[in-house]
């Protein structure tokens, strides 16, 4: 008996997500039990393990099947892009069909399963296999009667495999209503690692889930994980996306609508952030999404649109009616549109599909239109973790995401904010589109309810869709209410008219003033003239008087002088003055 090494070696499976969940893969040299109900995908998982082992990890494998379905397996594997026939020819895979025909067998005494051992050993040696799948070993139980001997032999088989260092997968069918995992209690022998697959149908939608029930000697994720079997084989959504450690980029990107960027702190949204555009029907949410995609492609970056309501052709047609032409981006390969009905698969399956598509296409922007369809009929408790995984995953990839969501038709009683509470906490930016009804018409308004990390406008603006594209116009804060649409236009006209009138009034007043001024000026000049005249008169009078005075003075002087001269010849008279 070989002693077990202290650290467990793991064999990578190459299956998307499974290696992350198991912390490296399946236990090397041990047997793993995969159990589940019929149609869960056990055989596919085992087969993919083998095929990837042969192609990616250079480990040939033997697939020992107890049912006749080699053709089916080959077809299934071909859809994943692997050619089983070629692999067989290259001796990387060996398919061995063991026939256990109950009717053919008569048990007549003691026996052991050495035939099987020899057969398996031969198969393993012939291609140097390191991996083996036994699908499904329970067929032996239905073929052979002596179950006690069979159990002993199975124990021996697993020891035999372990001694050879073969990593094996055993598939087992889940028992109906039994307390054991498998119908025949295989998990007792295969104690090292047990993975259960589940295929539930909930409200007509089927969900596939995987769970690592047991992994001896290793830490493993014990939750259930959704998976899909898609074009690239098994895809399990791993746990790493739930770590909240993504980077926050300071880069801002434009939404494609200039005035909307203005409302968002003048620069637009942060790269890698999540944007929610919610609103009642017909408010233009998809248009914003399409414009965002258009702008992204214009910059030369890739955009991925998940459309859950319209076909790609319809999206193109509808968006071209408002001047957004997405066709050239599709041709150039910068835009991909994935359309499907949300009811086609469960929410988790959609998530896995999105995950795979994003990893394959590597866009910088992802738009999901609408997300409300996916979350239809589900409780918040179910929706939130799944959306959280998606958003965390996108943020880790630094992908900017835009989600549109349909809220109930804007009734006055239900605030649109209330209906989105669960989802909105995951979003960095929330744009709310509303219909306002006034005076016989409904117009669209938009406002920024929240936008983390930036100053944003708190004003409601009118959102206008036209041939020329999307435009955001200031609403008119009227006397008692905000006016949009034709009311706005009417009001604008009225105010223009009023302004003109005022202007005219102004002019008139100015003219009046001018004429008054003239009149006053005329008066002033008249008064001035009068004043001058009077002044002149006064001056004249003064001048006259002073002349008189001067003349009188001169005369008296002359007279005095004369008197003086005459008195010198006569006797001076006494002059009394």
């Amino acid at each position, binding site marked *: 008996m070989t002693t077990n090494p202290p650290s467990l070696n793991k064999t990578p499976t190459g299956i998307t997500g499974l290696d992350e969940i198991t912390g490296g893969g399946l236990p090397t040299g041990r047997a793993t039990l995969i159990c589940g109900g019929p149609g869960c995908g056990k055989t596919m998982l085992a087969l993919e393990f083998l095929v990837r082992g042969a192609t990616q990890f250079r480990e040939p494998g033997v697939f020992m099947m107890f049912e006749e379905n080699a053709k089916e397996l080959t077809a299934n594997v071909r859809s994943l892009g692997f050619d089983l026939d070629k692999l067989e020819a290259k001796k990387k895979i060996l398919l061995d069909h063991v026939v256990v*025909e109950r009717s053919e067998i008569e048990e*007549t005494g*003691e*026996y*052991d399963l050495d035939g099987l051992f020899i*057969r398996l050993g031969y198969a393993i040696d012939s291609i140097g296999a390191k991996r083996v799948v036994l699908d499904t070993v329970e067929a*032996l139980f239905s073929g052979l009667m002596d179950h006690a001997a069979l159990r002993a032999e199975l124990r021996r088989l697993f020891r035999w495999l372990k001694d050879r260092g073969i990593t094996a997968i055993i598939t087992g069918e889940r028992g109906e209503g039994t307390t054991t995992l498998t119908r025949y209690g295989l998990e007792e022998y295969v104690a090292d690692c047990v993975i259960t697959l589940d295929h539930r149908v909930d409200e007509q939608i089927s969900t596939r889930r995987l769970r690592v029930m047991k992994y001896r000697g290793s830490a493993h994720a014990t939750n259930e994980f959704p998976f899909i079997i898609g074009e690239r084989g098994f895809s399990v959504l791993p746990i790493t996306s739930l770590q909240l450690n993504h980077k926050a980029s300071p880069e801002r990107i434009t939404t494609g609508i200039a005035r909307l960027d203005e409302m968002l702190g003048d620069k637009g949204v942060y790269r890698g952030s999540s944007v929610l555009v919610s609103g009642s029907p017909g408010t233009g949410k998809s248009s914003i999404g399409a414009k965002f995609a258009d702008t992204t492609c214009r910059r030369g970056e890739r955009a991925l649109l998940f459309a859950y309501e319209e076909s790609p052709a319809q999206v193109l047609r509808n968006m071209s009616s408002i001047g957004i032409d997405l066709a050239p981006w599709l041709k150039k390969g910068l835009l991909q549109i994935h359309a499907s009905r949300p009811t086609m698969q469960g929410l988790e399956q959609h998530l896995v599909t999105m995950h795979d598509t994003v990893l394959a296409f590597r866009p910088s922007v992802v738009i999901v239109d609408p997300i409300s369809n996916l979350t239809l009929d589900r409780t918040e408790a179910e929706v939130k973790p799944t959306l959280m995984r998606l958003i965390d995953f996108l943020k880790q990839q630094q992908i900017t995401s835009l989600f549109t969501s349909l809220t109930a038709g804007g009734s006055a009683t239900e605030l649109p904010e209330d209906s989105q509470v669960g989802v909105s906490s995951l979003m960095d930016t929330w744009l709310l589109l509303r219909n306002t009804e006034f005076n016989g018409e409904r117009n669209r308004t938009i406002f920024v309810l929240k936008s983390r990390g930036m100053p944003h406008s708190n004003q409601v603006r009118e959102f206008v869709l036209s041939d020329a594209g999307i435009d955001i116009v200031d609403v008119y804060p009227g006397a008692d209410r905000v006016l949009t649409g034709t009311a706005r236009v009417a009001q604008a006209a009225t105010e223009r008219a009023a302004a003109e009138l005022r202007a005219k009034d102004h002019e008139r007043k100015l003219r009046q003033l001018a004429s008054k001024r003239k009149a006053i000026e005329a008066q002033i000049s008249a008064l001035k003239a009068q004043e001058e005249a009077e002044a002149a008169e006064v001056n004249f009078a003064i001048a006259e008087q002073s002349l008189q005075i001067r003349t009188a003075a001169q005369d008296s002087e002359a007279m005095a002088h004369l008197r003086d001269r005459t008195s010198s010849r006569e006797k001076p008279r006494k002059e009394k003055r």
Partner: protein
Amino acid sequence: MKARKPAAFELRLYVAGQTAKSMAAFANLKRICETHLAGQYRIEVIDLLKNPQLAAGDQILAVPTLVRRLPEPIKKIIGDLSNEERVLVGLDVQPVKA
């Protein structure tokens, strides 16, 4: 053992080396054939350890396995053949009252 006329029963016994079960099976088989199929049988012993590829080719799981190849249809009997009745039923042989 060669019969003088063409053997009606062609039997193959698959063993995996010389184990107790294999030896017992062979001994039992000889005895049964002699008793009930005297002169009409042919036994071939195949050691899977020497010819492992035949385990797949002939779909042999258990050891020892006795395969009745002729007359058709093929019948498989597993075990050491200690239960004579079941062997006869399996081979579809009318027991000769001994």
